[in-house]
């Protein structure tokens, strides 16, 4: 079931004369229960998209449906109610500094008009226990670490039992270790509550760790969308490529390819294939020598993957490739154009090294 859908949404800032288009026709459909990533470099229109989805602003044209309701023309009490169905987690936490941790979590309940102190206390207690902060209930935000503050932010966002959790660069202000633990918490919440999570970020690493599907936003348009595995391992659009390259330093590998004898391929292993000793097999059985030029090994969510750039030479390359294909390894032949792109970067970096 689609829980958030945008159809041909546009949004322009600034008045007449020198207006700046922030979104130029965005189509997006987020399914109920999934962790959906929206990734883009700064200035791509992410913030605008967030303010549209959490209903702080309205699309200029196009339609926006949230939680099964068309949002056009909704105002007053109805709008406030609809906003409460979307929990929001912010990059800079946006906690109230004058309120304690418990009061911060109670805040959205009070805004929603919950009067019973006992009900509020019970809900706050349960939420703080869930995010592992019950010992800090009476502290003020400034006494907490960044990771703890974000946990308060998450508890607060969940207080009114929203259908959607919208995370705007929720881990961008945190160190890698804390980022992992906050992402793990989000992932657990997604599974436990079946809550839809929309995660806006500028780093592929965040997407790789918890998202099921991802949309790439570039200059106000969605340029690529699909399962994280596909988008991360086989990026098609230059903007996606740039974001993936930021996460993995692949230039060297492709650059080296130019100086290597043999045909260069990119092999992508996923799941069980990651652990099979397939390269050794093909070397023995098909007489194919291989040189590993570069690559990365890691996990997408919890599934292992490996992506290697390899030069094959000698032997029966054709049957070796067939063998790889049969084993479930994705094989792409790298064209000289692929290699040149990286080679330029490589030359630059070597020149820099010479200067140094």
């Amino acid at each position, binding site marked *: 079931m689609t829980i958030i859908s945008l159809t041909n949404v546009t949004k322009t800032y600034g008045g007449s004369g020198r207006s700046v288009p922030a979104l130029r026709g965005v189509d997006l459909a987020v399914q109920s229960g999934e962790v959906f990533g929206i990734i883009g470099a700064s200035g791509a229109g992410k913030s605008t998209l967030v303010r549209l989805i959490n209903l*702080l602003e309205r699309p200029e044209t196009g339609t926006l449906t949230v939680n099964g309701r068309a949002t056009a023309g909704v105002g007053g009490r109805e709008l*406030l109610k609809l906003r409460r169905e979307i929990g929001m987690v912010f990059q800079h936490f946006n906690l109230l500094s004058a309120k304690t941790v418990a009061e911060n979590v109670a805040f*959205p309940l009070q805004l929603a008009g919950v009067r019973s102190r006992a009900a509020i206390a019970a809900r706050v207690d349960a939420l703080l226990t869930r995010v592992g902060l019950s010992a800090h209930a009476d502290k003020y935000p400034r006494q907490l670490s960044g990771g703890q503050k974000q946990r308060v932010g998450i508890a607060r966002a969940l207080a*009114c039992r929203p259908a959607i959790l919208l995370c705007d660069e929720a881990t961008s202000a945190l160190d890698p270790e804390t980022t992992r633990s906050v992402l793990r918490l989000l992932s657990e919440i997604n599974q436990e509550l079946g809550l839809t999570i929309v995660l806006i970020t500028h780093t592929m690493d965040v997407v790789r760790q918890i998202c099921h599907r991802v949309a790439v936003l570039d200059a106000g348009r969605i340029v690529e969308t699909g399962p994280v595995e596909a988008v991360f391992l086989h990026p098609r659009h230059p903007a996606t490529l740039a974001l993936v390259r930021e996460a993995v330093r692949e230039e060297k590998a492709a650059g080296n390819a130019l100086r290597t004898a043999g045909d260069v391929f990119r092999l992508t292993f996923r799941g069980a294939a990651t652990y099979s000793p397939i390269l050794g097999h093909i070397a023995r059985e098909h007489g194919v020598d291989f040189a590993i030029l570069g690559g990365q090994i890691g996990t997408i969510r919890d599934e292992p993957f490996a992506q290697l750039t390899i030069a094959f030479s000698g032997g029966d390359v054709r049957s070796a490739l067939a063998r790889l294909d049969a084993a479930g390894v994705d094989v792409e032949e790298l064209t000289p154009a692929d290699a040149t792109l990286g080679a330029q970067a490589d030359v630059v970096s070597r020149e820099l090294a010479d200067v140094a």
Partner: protein
Amino acid sequence: MSLDRIDWPQIGFAALDTLAMLGGALFFTVLFGLPLGVLLFLTGRGQLLQQGAVYAVLSFVLNILRSVPFIILLIVLMPVTTLITGTSLGVRGVIPPLVVGTTAFFARLVETALREVDHGVIDASQAMGGTIGQIVFRALLPEALPGILAGITVTAIVLVDYTAMSGAIGGGGIGDLAIRYGYQRFQTEVMIVTVVLLIILVQLLQAAGNRLVLHFSRK
């Protein structure tokens, strides 16, 4: 010069008058200035109730009030004061011009204190479905409390200054004593005592203000 010539009970009564003017004027200044400051903030650029025209008019009027020297304000407002309190003399006759003189100043301080509040807090409250009233009373004002308290402290000290000045046109209090005895009758010792009293009062106000601000600061 001798301290024997000082009429201590008279100084005591004058000090009480000064405190009464200060307390009364401060109360009304906060009563009028706080909502004005909130309105000024909310109608400002990029804020919840952005209203260019309202902001411009409000800002213009407040600036006019702030640019009139207080001693002139005292004289100009005499008829209005008489209308409100029945007299333009003494403690009661001074409170209206004091309030007019400091409300605009205090409203600006409130606006500044509210602007200091992280805009993210407003975004968050809005995203949580808060109404403007809820956002003002439950988020903005509590967050800006230390800044507003600091503003009240500064305003109180300006008021001490103004009450002393009002002695020149028949207001009561320590300032009145300083002018009538210290200046017009050349009783230097009265002048010194009144100045010392004013210094002590200002120091106490500042110290109390600082403690309050510190107590409510959570940043």
